[in-house]
């Protein structure tokens, strides 16, 4: 009898341990905590005129390999552009100081990340260095807007609407999409 009682008590203990182990696994391995392993790192700065949807802790990649993460994003009150502080793993200390930083999107629905394109300078970045060459986030809306505005004169058969009429109206997208959608 006591034997049986002990066995279910041990079993209950094991069950509770298993539950907490699962919780610890979920909390540390599948969330942003997992990216937080803060080994030795150093900080670089980059200025962008538009960061798009770049988020804190977004990955920083070089040649597709993750080398660090975005540490903070702030607006420079004087120049009115965004200062992104990037912490980079100490393993990757050899980054030429004329490298360029750009904001990319991974896939169509993916998150935005900072891509670093290596330059050819013999000098390497030091802690606190700043990227001289940066390229802001590609705004999909702007691209589509430009594309539609450029595309509109190619399609004159649109009732009696003259091109200048459209430009004034600023609403050509509503009438155009069927003609200017290459995806389908």
């Amino acid at each position, binding site marked *: 009898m006591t034997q049986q*009682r002990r066995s*279910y*008590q041990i*079993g*209950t203990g*094991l*069950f*509770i341990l*298993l*539950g*907490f182990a*699962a*919780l610890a*696994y*979920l*909390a540390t*391995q*599948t*969330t*942003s*905590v*997992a*990216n937080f392993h803060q080994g030795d790192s150093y900080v670089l700065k980059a200025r962008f005129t538009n960061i798009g949807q770049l988020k804190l*802790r*977004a*990955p920083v990649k070089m040649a597709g390999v*993750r080398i660090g993460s975005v540490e903070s994003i702030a607006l420079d009150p004087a120049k009115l552009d965004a200062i992104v502080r990037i912490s980079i793993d100490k393993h990757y200390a050899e980054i030429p100081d004329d490298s360029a930083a750009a904001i990319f999107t*991974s*896939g*169509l*629905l*993916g*998150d935005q990340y900072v891509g670093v394109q290596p330059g050819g300078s013999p000098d390497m970045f030091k802690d606190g260095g700043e990227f001289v060459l940066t390229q802001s986030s590609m705004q999909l809306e702007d691209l589509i807007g430009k594309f539609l505005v450029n595309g509109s004169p190619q399609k004159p058969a649109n009732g009696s609407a003259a091109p200048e009429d459209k430009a004034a109206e600023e609403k050509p997208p509503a009438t155009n999409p069927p003609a200017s959608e290459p995806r389908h």
Partner: protein
Amino acid sequence: MSSVRRPPSMIGDALAQVGACGLFLLQVLAAVPKSLRHFRETVRQIWFTGAMSLVIIMTCGLFVGMVLGLQLYYVLSIFGGTAALGTVVSLSLYRELGPVVTALLFAGRAGTSITAEIGLMRATDQLAAMEMMAVDPLAYVAAPRFLAGIVAMPLLACVFNALGIFGAHLVGVSWLGLDNGTFWSNMTSSVDVWKDVVNGVWKSVAFGAVVSLIAVYQGYTTPPTSEGVAYATTRTVVFSSIVVLALDFVMTAFLM
């Protein structure tokens, strides 16, 4: 009782049930300190409702994760966004499916047996016998099962989530050939510990309390006949499913 019974009909009955269940909750909570003296009984109930439910929870978690992997892979491939599979699966498991499906399974696996056990105790006058021996059945029977539900449910939900992620990984990476690193890195970059994982745990704590309260209440107040026990068991599953899904909506609206 009989004079009140006729005019209010169904709505009145339902309100009376809810009110009686609320009062019962207060009684059980009042009996909780006393029940800690029978702490072994609580441990035994955690063993019975929690550890014994592990197999069904793990199996269902694995299958739910694999189905999510397949379905979401199909949907995401339409938009060319299969890289987000890990994110979508983990968010839907942590925020919704883990707590809710675990609660429904828990109601079916553990809630019914709690109701049947207590109902049979009621039908065979064991509860009255306990009172006779100055053992408070609320402290010795009801409270330990209630506490066990609160403890066991979040742990079961975590196990369910972990197995679900494993199942989705199995389908997405091992079968459909998604990149392993993409799967995990997309997940880790968009899942938040507090907003996603911990909120899911709060949900399952609430569901555990609700399901075990309903199960204990239905068993405790069952008519002492075999038919009564049968109906009480059915009502446990029906009511706890409805309440869990409704409460899920309310909690999601507040915890978002």
